[in-house]
């Protein structure tokens, strides 16, 4: 593994942040091109591991993958350079259009566009659910957690409580029935 400067690391991730549209799920092909093939910082296998883990830990998938990759390259400073780079375009673009946005959203045609966009966004969210489903909800226990957390969410229970109790239930389940713990292991190894 060769040494990479923090500025270069920031710049690579800034460019990736600029071309990431519709959420962070599209980060993998860019990381492959820049960090695996061009800079040879890490292997594709490592990137895939980072991606799987990033989905399961708090924070944004794109942000977490960037931090993992940056950490691999230059430790904590590298993680910071990478995540700062990948987030900066998102920040700048919202700041740039915000003032503009409140002026244009008063036009009826713009409101109509936003209403139709909502339908598309709804589809994108439901498709994300489908994608996450296969490695998240796959046995009796995970179906059980899905149903109770869905019910809790419908009943307006705070998402903080839902997420934390689900994690505790996962821990409890594997302590009470340790024979099934390979399920969880296999998953992270994917």
């Amino acid at each position, binding site marked *: 593994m060769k040494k990479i400067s923090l500025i270069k690391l920031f710049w690579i991730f800034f460019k990736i942040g600029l071309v990431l549209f519709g959420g962070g799920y599209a980060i993998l092909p860019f990381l492959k091109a820049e960090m695996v093939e061009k800079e040879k910082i890490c292997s594709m296998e490592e990137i895939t591991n980072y991606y799987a*883990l990033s989905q399961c830990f708090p924070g944004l998938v794109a942000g977490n993958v960037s931090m993992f990759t940056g950490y691999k390259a230059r430790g904590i400073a590298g993680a910071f350079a990478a995540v700062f780079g990948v987030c900066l375009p998102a920040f700048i673009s919202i700041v740039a259009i915000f003032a503009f946005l409140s002026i244009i959203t008063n036009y009826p045609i713009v409101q109509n566009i936003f209403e139709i966009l909502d339908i598309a966004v709804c589809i994108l969210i439901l498709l994300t659910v489908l994608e996450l489903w296969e490695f998240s909800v796959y046995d009796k226990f995970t179906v059980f957690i899905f149903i109770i957390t869905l019910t809790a969410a419908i009943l307006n229970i705070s998402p903080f409580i839902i997420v934390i109790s689900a994690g505790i239930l996962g821990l409890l389940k594997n302590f009470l029935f340790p024979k099934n713990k390979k399920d969880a292991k296999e998953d992270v190894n994917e």
Partner: protein
Amino acid sequence: MNNILILAIEYMKIGAVAIGGGYTVIPFLYYLVDKYKWFDIAEITQMIAVSNLTPGPIGINMATFVGIKVGGIWGAALTTVAFMLPSFIIICLLAKFLKRNKENKYINSALYGLRPAAVALISIAGLKIMNTTVFHIEKFTTSHNIGDIISLKASILLVIFGIMGLKLRKNPMILIAIAIITGLLVKI
């Protein structure tokens, strides 16, 4: 305590528990709406749409959006930093930890319970938007007109976009572009 600081603390809490990417933040935004009334549900859906149109991770777009709404540009900067801080600490510790132990059963078993909960929360986010665009339960409860329950045009678009979305999974940007063009041509 002023709003910017409250928002930063709330967003730091969101950053500490929101698992599974930017869409997971949406249910927490509904929670903020309920608790503080800084913005409303319609603004959240607008935020999601704008976040899909702008480059970068959706969660950062939304944090910037919420921050700027509540406290201007400094509010936006503080919210974004607060949002990223917990995951930065967690991922750095985890990356260090992973260097030493490849597998840890405690982490893995917690994740095993967390993932289906994250999926449930994201589903709710999608269903809430569907409830305001395709179904109009609230309108029905005041008018008692059966025709108000479901918007025909919106449900047709939902099916069409659903089919297109399945084909365009790698390029969600195209679906957003199609929705904008449809919005220019079709009155809903």
